[in-house]
């Protein structure tokens, strides 16, 4: 018994000594905490990322498909000279922009209602109603639209029911636009909501007292203050669309490849250097977009 107590006491004093040692040497504690995550990320993730972009300047042997480690700009030259790739890039960026605008238009009234009109109870309910689709499987949501837009799907059934002809939307660019707008909409609602919620009532009252009508208040007070939120949301909608290849594969037509589809195919071939070269395009576009977004105050919004 006495031994047990003694063992317990010495264990405790050992623990106290360790605690004290760590307390006196915060750098040691910091090192212990940071070593695992930083090493894992720096080595695995950053290493992989760097090696990817380095490989964009390599090439594969046409016969053996082995990667040749010789510096060349050929991948970029091919991209520049082949206008197929220009068209694909244009389509990707164009649809990403259209999706961003659509989501901003759809999200604004909902976010406004949530932030300024809904009772706390209703607001909590709407919150869940926006969050659940955000987290529910993105693949499943694309699949849902594939069945809705199909020839004998729910949309045509509805249109026929009210006496309209079939849409023929399945497997078109329009279908991709609808589905992308649908899938990323919650990402726009949340930051816009956060921005609108922070506008003090007194601003709107002041605007009214100074004689502004509703539309003028919207234009001169609400929209400028909501803009950072809209830009923050647009970062998701734009970036997520730029990098996607599942939606084009499932609801796009034969000639509706995105950058992501080409990259995915090239990795499968495998021609990783070319895939890496093409993948720099969305990264560069995003980098430019983020710089603009920062100017517009998007990073202070959320």
């Amino acid at each position, binding site marked *: 018994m006495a031994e047990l107590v003694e063992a317990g006491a010495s264990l405790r004093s050992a623990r106290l000594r360790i605690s004290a040692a760590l307390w006196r040497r915060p750098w040691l504690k910091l090192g212990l905490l940071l070593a695992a*995550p930083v090493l894992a990320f720096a080595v695995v993730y950053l290493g992989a990322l760097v090696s990817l972009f380095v490989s964009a300047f390599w090439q594969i042997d046409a016969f053996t498909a082995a990667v040749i480690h010789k510096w060349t700009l050929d991948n970029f030259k091919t991209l520049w000279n082949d206008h197929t790739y220009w068209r694909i890039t244009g389509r990707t960026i164009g649809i990403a922009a259209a999706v961003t605008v659509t989501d901003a238009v759809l999200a604004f009234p909902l976010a406004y209602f949530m932030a300024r009109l809904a009772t706390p109870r209703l607001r909590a309910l709407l919150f869940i*109603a926006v969050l659940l689709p955000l987290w529910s499987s993105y693949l499943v949501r694309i699949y849902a639209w594939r069945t809705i837009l199909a020839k004998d799907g729910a949309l045509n059934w509805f249109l026929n029911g009210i006496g309209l002809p079939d849409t023929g939307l399945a497997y078109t660019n329009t279908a991709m636009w609808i589905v992308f707008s649908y899938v990323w*909409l919650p990402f726009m609602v949340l930051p816009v909501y956060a921005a609108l919620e922070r506008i003090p009532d007194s601003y709107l009252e002041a605007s009214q007292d100074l004689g502004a009508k509703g539309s003028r208040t919207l234009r001169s007070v609400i929209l400028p203050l909501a803009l950072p939120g809209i830009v923050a949301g647009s970062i998701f909608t734009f970036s997520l669309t730029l990098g996607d290849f599942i939606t084009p594969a499932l609801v796009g037509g034969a000639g509706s490849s995105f950058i992501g589809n080409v990259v995915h195919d090239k990795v499968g071939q495998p021609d990783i250097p070319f895939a890496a070269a093409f993948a720099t395009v969305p*990264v560069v576009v995003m980098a430019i977009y983020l710089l603009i977004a920062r100017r517009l105050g998007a*990073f202070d919004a959320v």
Partner: protein
Amino acid sequence: METRSTRIGLGVATVAVIAFLWLPLLLIMAYAFNSSTIQSWPISGFTLHWFHEAWHDPEARSSLWLSIKVGLAATAVALVLGTAAAAAIYRFRFFGREAVSFLLLLPIALPGIITGMSLNSAFNFAGVRFSIWTIVVGHATFCVVIVYNNVLARLRRSSPSLLEASMDLGADGWQTFRFVVWPVLSTALVAGGLLAFALSFDEVIVTTFTAGAQTTLPIYILDHIQRGQDLPVVNAIVFVVILVTVIPVTIAQRLTGDTGVLRRGASRTKV
């Protein structure tokens, strides 16, 4: 302040947008009970047959099992790394602090295809054979951020003097952790873990690059949709997948009171 007509207009728009968000989900869930093998609307009759079929489908079973194992492993890694990183960022001011938090955010700031591809080429380059662990590494990259954000948000709301008080009262590191830190963090960890699991469970883009020939549940679903094969079984699985992702998110939302779940959105912008 808003006029009556504005209020009504906004109310109608809200109902319309919420319907737009939910109708497709409800519709695809209804297909799980379709008695016909033809994918047309309206469904022709009610049956539970496809759930039975899906449960006994060996391929679906093995891919479900793989997804669960990957999800659990990725969540475990994320809990350890995410919590350690959050504690370090919260407690210390050090050179490169911004860089560390930026590094952790990178996997969700960059499109999934970039993460997937770079890991794919790194595995090829290093001669690592594709296995369950390559998928886990892929998923862990973006799950860490989820835990990190949840834990950091919780730490920021608690007072650092709690730790000092505990030490002053003679508690050692373990006791401080067990009686002070753990009660503060536990729900944030549970919430972060649930969200990380939900994210891993339905991830498809990074997985296509890190799975090799293995099939997780989303890959199984994607393959079958693309080939138009066994769609009734897929519908039943999809029904379950929607429930499996919805339940943890609802619980996590209750545990964190909005902030945690929101972080997924918020974290992306803090680049």
